[in-house]
């Protein structure tokens, strides 16, 4: 090997020639081949890979849609209808893109739930978790702007209500709203810039996903027991063990995805979005896409404009500080008898908010939304910080391999000590 070349282990001469000059093959081998991965993953650990695949699907279908889509208020609606009726397989590409957005959110919600239940946000994975929250925020922005593009009634009024949220902020509010609109209402300049950003943001997401994975490959994965692997007996090489397990999950995922696309493509959508946008008439019942409903419910639970907007943004921003709100040294809620119950209740509240967000904001619905909102925040700001002090965790297993291959837990005293370092 001559000086200045990477010491490649690959035998194929072409691969080797490239790898010596730019060791991408060595890197892939290290990060996705031999990468030591805890041997006790359950299927919750599939969802990161599923999210990655979905992002690729969204980018691929989006690029093809853009070849037929016209970002102008007088053309947008018709160009989408043309995609549906005249463009070869346009209906398929659009339905994949449309339902892909929903599938993306389902996958990412489960991925986040996994992180919360198994304490994946705790040290040393705080930054990894925070990058995940950044990805989620970017996804929300992307999906919101994408939904505006077909320029139906829901596109238009969703865009109006959401951009107006920013007008609640004192001083800078109206300035921000005008920057978003490029005029005095949601109109052609708005549609143009939203298309531009809708095209751009997925690639930004791709960049942040790269950082997310880079951080993951420093700390290594968490696992259902929430204890660190102590050595080779606790891990498996990523390939072929988890490439295989991820593939099984992927096949099941594609089946669900396909059922949605082929048998119920409009089930998750709103029929009003097949009516062209009309700036003079608001539909009697405007609702955002299902994945925004919990936050919409929080917004409407508060009778004050600014207060509602702050709580709505706060409901996601609070995730950023979750690693510091939950100081319990035990990661996995399998070993946290109280936290587990409070967290499952939180999940129920989240789903209740999702349901109530689609109901009219009156009567008991408002009351339900308020109770669920209160618990949503109490869980993060009161319950978790207190549990770290008062909860008595169950004994942790000595190691992953002992827990997997049998062998009892350690005696109480030994397990209650703070989280072990790998």
């Amino acid at each position: 090997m001559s000086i200045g070349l990477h010491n490649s282990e690959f035998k194929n001469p072409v691969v080797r020639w490239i790898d010596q000059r730019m060791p991408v093959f060595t890197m892939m081998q290290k990060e996705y081949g031999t990468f030591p991965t805890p041997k006790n993953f359950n299927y919750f650990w599939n969802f990161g890979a599923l999210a990655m695949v979905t992002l690729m699907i969204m980018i691929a279908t989006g690029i093809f849609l853009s070849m037929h889509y016209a970002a102008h208020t007088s053309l947008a609606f018709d160009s989408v209808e043309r995609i549906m009726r005249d463009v070869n397989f346009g209906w398929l590409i659009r339905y994949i893109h449309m339902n892909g957005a929903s599938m993306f959110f389902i996958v990412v919600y489960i991925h986040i739930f996994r992180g919360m239940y198994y304490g994946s946000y705790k040290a040393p994975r705080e930054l990894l978790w925070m990058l995940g929250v950044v990805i989620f925020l970017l996804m929300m922005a992307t999906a919101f702007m994408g939904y505006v593009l077909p320029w139906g009634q829901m596109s238009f009024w969703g865009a109006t209500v959401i951009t107006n949220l920013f007008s609640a902020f004192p001083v800078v509010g109206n300035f921000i709203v005008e920057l978003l609109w490029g005029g005095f209402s949601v109109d052609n300049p708005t549609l143009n810039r939203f298309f531009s950003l809708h095209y751009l943001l997925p690639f930004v997401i791709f960049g942040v996903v790269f950082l997310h994975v880079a951080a993951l490959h420093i700390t290594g994965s968490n696992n259902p027991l929430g204890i660190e692997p102590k050595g080779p007996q606790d891990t498996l090489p990523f390939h072929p063990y988890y490439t295989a397990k991820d593939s099984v999950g992927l096949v099941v995922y594609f089946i669900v995805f396909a059922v949605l696309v082929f048998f119920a493509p409009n089930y998750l959508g709103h029929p009003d979005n097949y009516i062209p946008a009309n700036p003079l008439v608001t539909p009697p019942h405007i609702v955002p896409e299902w994945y925004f409903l919990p936050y919409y419910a929080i917004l409407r639970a508060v009778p004050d404009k600014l207060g509602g907007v702050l709580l709505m943004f706060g409901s996601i921003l609070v995730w950023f500080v979750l690693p510091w709100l939950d100081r319990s040294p035990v990661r996995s809620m399998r070993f946290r008898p109280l936290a587990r119950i409070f967290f499952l209740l939180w999940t129920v509240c989240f789903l209740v908010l999702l349901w109530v967000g689609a109901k009219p904001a009156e009567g008991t619905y408002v009351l339900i939304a308020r109770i669920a909102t209160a618990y949503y925040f109490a869980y993060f700001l009161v319950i978790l910080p207190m549990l770290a002090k008062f909860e008595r965790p169950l004994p942790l297993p000595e190691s992953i391999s002992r827990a997997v291959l049998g062998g009892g837990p350690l005696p109480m005293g030994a397990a209650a000590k703070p989280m072990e370092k790998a």
Partner: protein
Amino acid sequence: MTDNGHAATDGAPRRDFLMLVTGAFAAVGVGAIAWPFIASLQPAKDTLALASTDVELAPIAEGQAITVMWRGKPVFVRNRTAKEIQEARAVPTNSLPDPATDQSRVQKDQWLILVGICTHLGCVPTGQRATDARGDYGGWFCPCHGSHYDTSGRIRKGPAPRNLDVPQYAFTSDTKIRIG
């Protein structure tokens, strides 16, 4: 630093100064470059030029209302009945969420001109047609999150923080107005 041959003692303040000056120049440079980009997002000249709309009032009978488009937004023009005017003037203004007298919101008693956009999150309230829901105060009702406006377009109940805006307009003749 000693490793590049400069004396650490008297070089440091000078280096700090140079760092600050460089940083300040860079900040100004970034600002100067960002400026045109942000300005490009603001309303363009042709958007600003669509600034006024003329409305003929003669065809609007008492009790009727029409909606016209101004700057991409709906504007409500309502020919109020004597009863509606009287209702709007009967309420004590200090009991209102956004206190304003009815007189301060009209130029001619019977003609109420409003930007038809809910001050909560921008939906168009219903109440322009006689068959529409007009809310608890006989003016307009916003279905999005339940804001009720009275016959002067003032917010009475619901999440909206302000009264419906009155656009700039002028009577160009007895039966004509120009909005904007």
